[in-house]
């Protein structure tokens, strides 16, 4: 369980978050949603201490974030950023860097690190691409490679910042299936999503942000149907049922 209590965050003196109270349940998929510029990325970056000016409390399994060293934090929370560099290295090498928090200077990778990497590559079905350069991969394959690195990091929490961006529809659903499978490994997944249908499809818990504040939180359908959703986005989510379950589309 991750808890945010009275979280304020600023960049260069401009306050982005104005007192966020939220929780992300253990072993579930929690989705942060909200309009552009509402503070979603700032919230997840605050979880990783990537925002310089933060006030309030963040608890990870009851441990205050501030009491963790940088390595300890990296052994608890993994992060897949929205915008990823494509360095001139192989997939295997990238995934190997997930083991960085477990090593001290001069950081030579051990047998057990290689074992974690092989496991992560196998789990994401990337074994055949292990020797390929990142730059030779498609966007979906690179996304999986970064997820494998996060998995090799062996953390309880994995944060995905807009992971479906630039992916085709098949890769979007495959990614969400991987996220679900990660929760079955006992991991807590926190991600930012924009698409209401995808949110309905995958989220156990949704936190709706608007102008740096929590507007609503709860189950996916509960939040999507709330009046706050319409007020925050200025659109109306509509629902329909098929034999596969409930689906969502948006009326402007």
């Amino acid at each position, binding site marked *: 369980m991750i808890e945010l209590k009275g979280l304020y965050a600023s960049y260069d003196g401009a306050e982005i978050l104005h007192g966020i109270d939220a929780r992300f349940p253990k072993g579930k998929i929690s989705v942060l949603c909200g309009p552009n510029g509402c503070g979603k990325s700032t919230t997840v*970056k605050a979880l990783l201490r990537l925002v310089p000016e933060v006030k309030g409390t963040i608890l990870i399994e009851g441990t205050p974030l501030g009491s963790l060293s940088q390595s300890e934090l*990296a052994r608890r929370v993994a992060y897949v*950023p929205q915008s990823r560099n494509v360095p001139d290295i192989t997939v295997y090498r990238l995934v190997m860097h997930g083991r960085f928090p477990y090593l001290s200077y001069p950081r030579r990778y051990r047998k057990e690190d290689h074992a974690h990497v092989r496991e992560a590559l196998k789990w994401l079905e990337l074994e055949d691409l292990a020797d390929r350069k990142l730059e030779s991969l498609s966007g979906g394959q690179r996304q999986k490679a970064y997820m494998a690195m996060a998995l090799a*990091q062996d953390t309880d929490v994995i944060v995905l910042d807009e992971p479906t961006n630039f992916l085709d529809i098949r890769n979007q659903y495959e990614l969400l299936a991987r996220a679900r499978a990660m929760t079955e490994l006992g991991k807590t997944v926190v991600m930012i999503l924009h698409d209401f249908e995808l949110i309905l499809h995958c989220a156990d818990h949704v936190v709706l942000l608007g102008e740096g504040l929590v507007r609503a939180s709860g189950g996916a359908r509960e939040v999507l149907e709330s009046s706050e959703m319409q007020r925050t986005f200025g659109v109306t989510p509509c629902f329909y049922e098929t034999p596969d379950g409930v689906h969502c589309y948006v009326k402007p």
Partner: protein
Amino acid sequence: MPNLRPSSTTTKRRALPFFLASLFLFASALASLCLGAAGLSLQKLWAALLSGPDASAAARILWYARIPRTAACILAGAGLAVSGAVIQKVLNNSLASPSIIGINAGAGLAVAVCCALGVYAGWLVAGAAFAGALCATFLVVITARKSRASRTTVVLAGVAVTACLNAVTETIRTMVPDAALASQDFRVGGFHAVNQARLLPAGILILLAIAAVCTLTNELELLSLGDDTAHSLGMRVAPTRNLLLTLAALLAGASVSFAGLLGFVGLIVPHIARKLIGGESGRLIPFCAIAGAGFVTLCDLISRLIFAPYELPTGILLSFLGGPFFVWLLIKKRGSHSSD
């Protein structure tokens, strides 16, 4: 998938570029020792090596001219190539190199100041060159960060810093004629006036800095993943970046302190190295050291022989090679992406 214990074929395949680069370095160094205004056969070379410095004319040429010069080429080539590779990784910018972003100019200015003050060799010159290189590095990096500059703007900031520093250097040369005499080798870079007093302290610094960089190759690679990713993997990004830039400045500054403003080594060698062995830092850094040493030694040899008995400064030859290479890189980079 790579095995924990790679097969002997894989090991051989990965070791082959290192073997060839070492062979290239050895051949260049041997040719550099043997060839020149007075040629030395292999037998004479061997005899002169065994006899000591003052036994014959050939021995004096070898011990007082060829060995210091070849050692200087090897050290400067390795230092500048590794410095370039580090800067390109840290700034995530394949156009960056010590000569392009102003590091060499900072070192050159510091050496000009030393010469103006009457200090021509020793630890003080090497230390001052390092300090000058370091100041120029952080001037460019801080300017780029404050202005949230794009990758190209970092290079432009380097061009501006280089112009300013060179203007100050030229002013010192104009105002203090002795400094101009002592430091004119620095304008284009070359090895004909290299001496042991300058080479020894700088050489020690270069070897120590390369050894330090070799222990930080994982950190170097994490920085190329981007600041947020590196931070989320537990790395202290700003101190690590500053440490690596300091080592890059040390390598470039120490090289410039005896070789002058040799351009483009830090640009050309890392690019060719990446083409040959890929971008993994653990292999790239040692390969750049070996290949850079061989490359500069060969360039110095060509510049000695091409218009013999006249000698072309090595820096001029490097500029002939490096200028077009830089333009080619600019054209090649158009439309390429290094992030999703």
